[in-house]
């Protein structure tokens, strides 16, 4: 037992340690948090990471670029498209491969579908954290349609490995194009229903409004990105600030909310679903014809000596890859910068002095994916 000095009262308060996880329904995946508690109040919440660490970066150093590609679908398993995008993007940059426009458009469409499906899982799980069971069923109903669409073209429901070095695994078919249009049309009224069912619910609002405030400065100091920083009023979105692929050809917004509380982060993601639908629609309208693989992608790929970086806006924020090449077939170093790690790193500071159920609401609003942290 340790004691902490509680001001202004002089008597030392007795604290106890509450162990949250690594197997606990409130933590989503195997995250453990050692919580030092003063009654119901959090004195210190220390995340303990690494329970599903797989040493992805070592695997990057003992196989070729193409052989490592499937691993990139297994980092943030809810946002696999974007992680793969960053990896192939860095290689294409280094090898000076020209990806055909049709492939880039399909990358944008599938990445945004993936973003929506990821946000839907978060939405359902977050409300489950807060004690509402029903929304999860709606969310998974809508997400199922996306998974079916992506399964049709990639053969996989989560670990897509759909983007290949220089293009795509295969072209999209008519069923995908038609189904995606249908999904966009169906999803808009569903968002309205989500709003009426949950967002305007008074109990829900009381659980989130003013809870877990995170300042823009705290985000900057910890490197928090994605909906976390946009919920603190900063319009930082890699798609906007450092546009990659063909995102600069699309008309969309990076929604921000200035309050910095859990509600703001909630609203950012809900608005992002609407924006992703806009992007998908434009992509379908403008989809150019042509091949989906670059010409002459070498079978044995060796990158010129040097460092190559590529960053994308994953569902949770900035996902970056740094490849160090020594000119051989196998990368010398593959560094994966994941948004969940930086977003979680501010939790200890942000949760200090909060009530336990509020701290869990804050944690849920960060939208953590543990394999993205542990890699």
């Amino acid at each position, binding site marked *: 037992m340790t004691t902490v000095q509680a001001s202004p009262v002089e008597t030392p308060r007795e604290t106890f340690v509450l162990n949250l996880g690594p197997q606990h329904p409130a933590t989503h995946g195997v995250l453990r948090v050692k919580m030092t508690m003063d009654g119901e109040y959090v004195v210190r919440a220390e995340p303990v990471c690494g329970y599903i*660490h797989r040493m992805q*970066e*070592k695997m990057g150093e003992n196989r070729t670029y193409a052989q490592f590609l499937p691993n990139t679908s297994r980092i943030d398993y809810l946002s696999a498209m974007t992680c793969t995008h960053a990896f192939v993007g*860095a290689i294409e940059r280094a090898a000076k491969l020209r990806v055909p426009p049709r492939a880039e458009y399909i990358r944008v469409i599938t990445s945004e579908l993936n973003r929506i499906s990821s946000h839907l899982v978060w939405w359902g799980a977050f409300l489950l954290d807060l004690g509402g069971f029903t929304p999860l069923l709606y969310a998974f109903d809508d997400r199922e349609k996306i998974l079916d669409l992506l399964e049709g073209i990639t053969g996989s429901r989560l670990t897509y490995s759909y983007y290949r070095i220089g293009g795509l695994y295969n072209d999209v078919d008519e069923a995908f194009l038609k189904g995606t249009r249908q999904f966009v049309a169906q999803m808009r009224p569903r968002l309205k229903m989500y709003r009426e069912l949950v967002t305007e619910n008074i109990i829900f609002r009381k659980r989130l409004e003013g809870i877990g405030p995170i300042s823009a400065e705290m985000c900057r100091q910890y*490197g928090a990105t994605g909906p976390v920083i946009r919920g603190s009023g900063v319009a*930082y979105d890699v798609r906007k*600030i450092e546009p990659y692929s063909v995102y600069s050809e699309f008309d969309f917004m990076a929604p921000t909310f200035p309050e910095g509380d859990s509600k703001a982060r909630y609203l950012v993601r809900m608005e992002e679903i609407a924006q992703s639908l806009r992007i998908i629609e434009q992509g379908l309208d403008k989809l150019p014809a042509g091949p989906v693989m670059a010409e002459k992608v070498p079978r044995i790929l060796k990158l010129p000596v040097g460092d190559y970086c590529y960053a994308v806006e994953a569902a949770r924020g900035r996902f970056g890859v*740094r490849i160090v090449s020594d000119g051989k077939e196998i990368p010398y170093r593959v560094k994966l910068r994941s948004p969940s790690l930086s977003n979680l790193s501010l939790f200890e500071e942000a949760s200090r002095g909060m009530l336990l159920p509020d701290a869990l609401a804050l944690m849920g609003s960060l939208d953590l994916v543990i394999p993205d942290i542990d890699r």
Partner: protein
Amino acid sequence: MNPKLPPSIPFQPVDYAAKGCHFDAVIAADKVVEAAALLDGAGFVLDTITGVDWMAEGQMELVYDFFRLEEALRVAVRTRIPRDNPEIATISGVYPGANWHERETHDFFGIRFTGHPDLTPFLLPEDATYHPLRKDFVA
């Protein structure tokens, strides 16, 4: 030179289209904390910290990536330290977010960050005595 960059860090322009980075600086290991403080003052965000083991040269490289929130401006600060005594001052006093990145780099490379508040294993098991990204590591 970009006016957003602190002039006392020796940044060299990099071809963004080819490399994905705008500026790169190689500095001495004892200047890293100072450089981090300058970049912090200039409003940069610490992206990540990367170690690279250059075993043949007997050196460990550290790459500190920074970016800005307002515009496309990515910079990298690099330094090298001896491989047989890899030690460097922590920048977690400047950027609290560096804490976990440095713990991870310590896990993977055995680089000791002096002054770090808690250099215990982060992703590796709590009793780990190995550093898997060192090039001489054998599983």
